């Protein structure tokens, strides 16, 4: 058997591929965070809780309304996105004039409340959600068995990332959005409704989190803590990529998934820490992040 650095090659390739799968979640989540931070200047700590709500909404749609996975993939982001719009209007919009710290505290509090409520009603051990029948089964790639569903997750995440990037970089809406990020009063003076745009941006970022939540539901158990486990890592991804950088968050998301996957082979105990080690190094070398611009 071929060996690379003392590890059998098939195992190493398997871990690389799994890294890409996990990276897909990191990319989707950090993309939403980056959009929200870029536009609203809010560090959205509720992102993990909204990811979890996406998964629970999919579960609820199936169990209370008989609506399956594919519709949930469309409906759950819309429902949770609408909820995000409500949150923005009721709470977050009051804080734009204040320091970052207030937004952070508010969204962190919201996350605790949301997770606590869900835990209270559904317990902590999680709820089962089946992989849709079309995506069951697995492909034998020679060096590992690749479940079809994981392949679909990577594909869906890449497509969603590309669409989001195109919308922001190539459409007129995206252009207005970027302009408003740079100088909101000026854009408003052209007759563009900036507050509405901000609200919708928050809704869209939240919808991305919910979309990732639906993708995650069949893989991880649908439980109230599923977002809390993710959110810290995802923040590190955003910081490493450069706060607010769309491309940075996508590339870093996938990249760190791979770094984490490799750590799981060479030093499993460190797999939860390695991302933060990378973060420290990156911040020391490039304080604005890999893709960020210093202001």
């Amino acid at each position, binding site marked *: 058997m071929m060996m690379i650095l003392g590890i*059998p090659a*098939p*195992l190493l390739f*398997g*871990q690389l591929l*799994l890294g890409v*799968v*996990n990276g897909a979640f990191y990319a989707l989540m950090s993309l939403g965070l980056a959009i929200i931070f870029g536009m609203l200047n809010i560090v959205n700590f509720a992102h993990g809780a909204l990811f979890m709500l996406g998964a629970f909404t999919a579960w609820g749609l199936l169990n209370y309304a008989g609506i399956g996975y594919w519709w949930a993939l469309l409906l759950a982001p819309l429902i949770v996105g609408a909820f995000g719009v409500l949150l923005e209007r009721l709470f977050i919009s009051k804080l734009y004039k204040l320091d970052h710290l207030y937004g952070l505290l508010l969204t962190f509090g919201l996350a605790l409340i949301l997770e*606590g409520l869900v*835990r209270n009603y559904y*317990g*902590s*051990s*999680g*709820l*089962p959600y089946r*992989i849709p029948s079309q995506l069951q089964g*697995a492909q034998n790639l020679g060096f*590992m*068995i690749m*479940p079809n*569903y*994981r392949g679909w997750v990577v594909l869906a995440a890449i497509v969603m990332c590309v669409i989001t990037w195109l919308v922001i970089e190539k459409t007129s809406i995206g252009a207005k959005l970027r302009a408003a990020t740079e100088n909101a009063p000026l854009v408003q003076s052209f007759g563009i409704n900036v507050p509405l745009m901000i609200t919708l941006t928050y809704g869209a970022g939240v919808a991305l989190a919910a979309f990732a939540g639906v993708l995650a539901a069949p*893989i*991880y*158990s649908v*439980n109230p*803590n*599923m977002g809390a*486990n*993710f959110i*810290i890592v995802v923040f590190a991804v955003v910081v490493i990529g450069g706060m607010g950088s769309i491309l940075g968050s996508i590339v870093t998301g996938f990249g760190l998934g791979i770094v984490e*996957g490799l750590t*799981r*082979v060479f030093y*499993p*105990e460190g*797999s*939860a*820490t390695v991302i933060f080690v990378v973060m420290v190094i990156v911040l020391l070398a490039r304080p604005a992040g890999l893709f960020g611009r210093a202001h």
Partner: protein
Amino acid sequence: MSLSRRALLGTAAAVPAAATFRSARAQRPVVKIGVLTDLSGVYQDIVGPLAVESTRLAVADFGDRGFDVEVLIGDHQNKPDIGSNLVRQWYDRDGVDIVVEGGSSAVALAVSGVARDKNKAYINSGGATSDLTGTQCNANTLHWTYDTYMLAKSTGAAMVKAGGNSWFFITADYAFGHALTRDVGNFVTQAGGRVLGGVRTPFPGTTDFSSYLLQAQASGAKVIGLANAGADTTNCIKQAKEFGITTPLAGLLMFISDVHSLGLDTCQGLVLTESFYWNLNDRTRAFSDRLWKRMPNRRAGMANAGPYSSTLHFLKAVQAMGPAEAKKSGAALIAQMKKMPTDDDVHGQGIIREDGRKIHPAYLFQVKKPSESKGPWDYYNLLGTTPADEAFRPMKDGNCPLVKA
């Protein structure tokens, strides 16, 4: 509910009456029980609110025998520092006499030390590490429901007997996972098997176990031992199925709530050990029906039910000593509890050993096929029973300082 003016006036009149009644009773002695448990984290369903309710049920079943019982509730958040600080406050400020349930292994080891320093009593139910009655034992602590040795002996030995003679462990990287891996590893090597390797996974915070499962498969081991619990275990089982891993999994610590969460479809055929199952015999069914009335929709696993058994025994000891005497010294109270045989609906008859280990049988269960299950929570077939005197580590092997003395 509508409130009439008359009803409101009636309530207002009743309040002073109740106050007088209370002051008349104020002379009665009060014993205080603190239920320290996980109310917000990954182990909430394994212990949590249902463990609190089973403690309250024990108080209700014990009835009024001349002293009042107060139950306090606290959340340790699976952090030893939070757990031990809370317990220190309970003992020092709130006059708590005994802490029950008492959290997962890391919290348990910390709280046990606090109980010793303050000379109060502590009965752990939810924790697993066999060190509580081994090298870390003390005169103020009892370990009640199960431990890593019991799990290793029952599930581990059964898997080896079935031909699983080479193992790879996926271990939660803290006191509990380490103890469980050690105890199971000992049984495997004693039985002539081999431990091929293992990975320690960060706890809490690991959600994706597929990398570890692939490493386990690549090791060529015949059994993958899951030395973790709760959501970690359910994620492992779910993802092993997804990745088509055919190596048998040994869920070394699984509870009925985990099976409920995964569904019989995914869990069928798995072998696991509990010291309590709601549908085991007439007494467990009677207990479970009483608990169900207080908290419907969930059936208790052993860690939910354990605090009932331990609280009841504590109350009997208080009655035997007299409340005033019982409140004086935690070590004397624990010594009294060790002198008395135990008897309750959860574990039947049992005893408590000198090292603080509560002794009762361990049951090896296999999870039913969906077609075998007659209804909700009908999940287990009984495969075998380890008798009480064999289910736990012999006292001489534990190196507990109390036993030498």
